[in-house]
């Protein structure tokens, strides 16, 4: 791993100031993706701005569920508020990586990284979340802009994720057995605006499956998905799964997500 200058700011303002002063700086939250990427030489920032001292973690439930960016996956998975308001989100967080990764990895880090096989982006898009940053709020639909890319500007940092509370929601994933990342993960939500289905792991980035949403318009039940499918065109194809197999898995995982919804 290439060496770097290390900063540990105590406030969001100081973090943004430090990031803006160094064009090749990177924020680090839990480091569960950044450190492995740096070891492999896929990232070599000049400066690491560690957000750990911001102590920006915590969850508040009201008309919406607000999770601060530095909240770990373990904290989300075990939160009574999350389990009550959006049980699918707690279940999703409890299935990320493994227990040790969940102790370090954070929701803000995962969302900012937008790994095409990460779990959280599907919940953000599936629920129509709002991403809060130091500068503004961004709708999930506008936030995830492609593989590892987001609407975040240079130096902009996520402070919290705000989730509307659905009538019910479920998440099901087919994990890669080694990495625990989703080969295909589907977040299905029955919301005030109708059914929403977001897919991770299958494409270049998280996306909504409009054919499955239309099918669920007949009723939020797995039976409504009988015969429904997602085109394999443009889906990922690699040594783990062909695009056709991933397309098949999307419908299977969508049915499981709907069946698991509560």
């Amino acid at each position: 791993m290439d060496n770097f200058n290390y900063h540990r700011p105590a406030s969001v303002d100081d973090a943004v100031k430090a990031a803006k002063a160094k064009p090749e700086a990177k924020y680090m939250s839990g480091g569960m993706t950044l450190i492995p990427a740096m070891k492999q030489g896929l990232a070599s920032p000049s400066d690491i701005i560690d957000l750990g001292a911001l102590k920006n973690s915590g969850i508040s439930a009201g008309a919406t569920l607000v999770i601060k960016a530095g909240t770990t996956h373990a904290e989300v998975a075990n939160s009574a508020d999350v389990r009550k308001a959006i049980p699918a989100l707690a279940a999703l967080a409890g299935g990320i990586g493994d227990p040790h990764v969940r102790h370090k990895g954070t929701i803000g880090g995962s969302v900012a990284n937008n790994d095409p096989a990460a779990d959280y982006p599907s919940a953000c898009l599936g629920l129509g979340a709002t991403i809060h940053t130091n500068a503004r709020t961004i709708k999930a639909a506008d936030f995830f802009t492609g593989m590892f890319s987001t609407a975040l500007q240079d130096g902009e940092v996520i402070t919290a994720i705000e989730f509307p509370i659905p009538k019910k929601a479920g998440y099901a994933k087919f994990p890669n057995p080694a990495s625990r990342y989703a080969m295909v993960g589907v977040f299905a939500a029955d919301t005030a605006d109708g059914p929403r289905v977001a897919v991770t792991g299958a494409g270049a980035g998280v996306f909504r499956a409009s054919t499955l949403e239309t099918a669920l318009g007949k009723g939020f039940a797995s039976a409504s998905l009988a015969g429904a499918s997602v085109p394999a065109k443009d889906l990922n194809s690699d040594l783990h799964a062909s695009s056709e197999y991933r397309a098949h898995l999307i419908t299977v995982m969508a049915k499981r997500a709907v069946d698991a919804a509560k």
Partner: protein
Amino acid sequence: MPAISMTVNGQAVCGDVEGRTLLVEFIREKLGLTGTHVGCDTSQCGACVVLVNGKAVKSCTALAIAHDGAAVTTVEGLAQDGKMHPMQEAFRDNHGLQCGFCTPGMVIASIDMVNRLGKNLSEDTIRHELEGNICRCTGYHNIVAAVKAGAANM
């Protein structure tokens, strides 16, 4: 190089590190505590798991400098007064290891599991909770038996 200090196995320690020095490198190379192993170095195998402020983390995927002031427990810190920790004892009694390379991480992860979930662990729970720890010898059967027995004795 910046100096950091932490408490490792109850002892105050300090040392100079680079930004890129991993927690596991600090533990093994600066402190000479080589019980914590590096298996995959890609965050998957769990041989490097230590307790940081009471929680299991992968020390190969943590910067030492980010842990200035932390309390760390490694496998060397488990035995008390020459007597093995009940989880270590259970791994011996149940033949929960063959080559032993994954064992320090397995033992620490298992103690973390008990700390979070209690002493009465089902086989399903143990297998699920060991997802972050890979063993290439045992087939896990005796590890699961060891965790179950060790948990009951903690």
